[in-house]
């Protein structure tokens, strides 16, 4: 193992450049460790975002050697190219500064996709009984663990081509609600997620599924949405 890692880190906003730093190698060192070392010891003006450091919060996602990843769960040894690594902000999001992106557009699309649960029961009603092994509940389980890190969104080429495309995370969220039998906003949600800015723009390239750190499959969720919304459209319900 080389004793020094040559890290090239993006500095600036949309207009900027990579700046080179020399960082000592450590056993089991993560990319987040590298960025933190640079900020604590070499250049305190470096801006980046993190919170939990253990893959729970989803706030430290960056582009590492061209691939969107959680930096806290990415070991340098997994991704180092020779003795170097290139670290940039997530793609398809405006850069606030250095490695920090503005996530508002990403989360606004969750809202546009009607990603909020709408129920009809109150706390005075009985609990809804949902069989754990029912097909709909199994479909919900497959996508429910998303923590909104934006890795799939940055990995998706269609987001780059169609800025109004809702993206894999918002559509995955919508699919979990379409399959939630307690939810009452199904028709509105299907209208929100269908069409050229919604699930039908997906090319099924699968980059979201390939890079999702939670090993979810937004591609499958989007395929499900295509199926149910196409049926609804042919019945004249959209």
């Amino acid at each position, binding site marked *: 193992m080389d004793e020094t890692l040559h890290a090239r880190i993006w500095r600036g906003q949309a207009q900027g450049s990579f700046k080179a730093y020399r960082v000592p190698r450590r056993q089991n060192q993560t990319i987040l460790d590298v960025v933190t070392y640079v900020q604590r010891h070499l250049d305190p003006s470096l801006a980046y975002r993190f919170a939990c450091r253990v893959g729970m919060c989803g706030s430290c996602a960056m582009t590492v050697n061209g691939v969107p990843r959680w930096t806290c769960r990415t070991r340098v040894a997994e991704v180092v190219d020779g003795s170097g690594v290139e670290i940039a902000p997530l793609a398809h999001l405006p850069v606030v500064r250095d490695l920090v992106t503005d996530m508002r557009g990403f989360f606004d699309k969750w809202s546009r996709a009607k990603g909020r649960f709408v129920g009809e029961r109150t706390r005075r009603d009985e609990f809804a009984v949902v069989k754990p092994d029912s097909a709909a509940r199994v479909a919900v389980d497959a996508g429910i663990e998303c923590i909104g890190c934006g890795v799939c969104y940055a990995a998706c080429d269609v987001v780059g081509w*169609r800025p109004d495309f809702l993206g894999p995370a918002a559509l995955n969220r919508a699919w979990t609600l379409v399959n939630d039998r307690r939810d009452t906003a199904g028709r509105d949600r299907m209208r929100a997620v*269908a*069409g050229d800015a*919604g699930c039908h723009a997906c090319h099924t390239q699968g980059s979201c599924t390939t890079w999702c750190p939670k090993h979810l499959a937004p591609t499958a969720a989007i395929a499900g949405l295509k199926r149910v919304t*196409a049926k609804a*459209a042919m019945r004249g319900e*959209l």
Partner: protein
Amino acid sequence: MSNVGVQVRGWYWQRVSAMVLAVCVVIHLAIIIYASRRGLTAAQILGRTRGSVPLAAFYALFVAACAVHVPIGLKSIAEEWLSWRGRSVSIAAVFVAVAILAMGLRAVWAVVA
């Protein structure tokens, strides 16, 4: 029907037309291979195609599937790669559909009439 409804129907018909095209292309290739392997001349081919209702129906279906499939795909490519959106790209797609239909059916007519 809403704009979204039109977009979803477009997606649906592109998938259906793709299924039709998959079958048509295989049959078309088989016909080409048969004609070329047998060394048929243009006159011999026309002798077999003229007056053939099944051949006319098959190639008319092939042309119709192309006229549905191609414009929808070209519209998506124009939107994603050229950022050409809105009403003008939809009108251009309809123009492409009509052109494919007219040229294709004219070609079918030329070999069966």
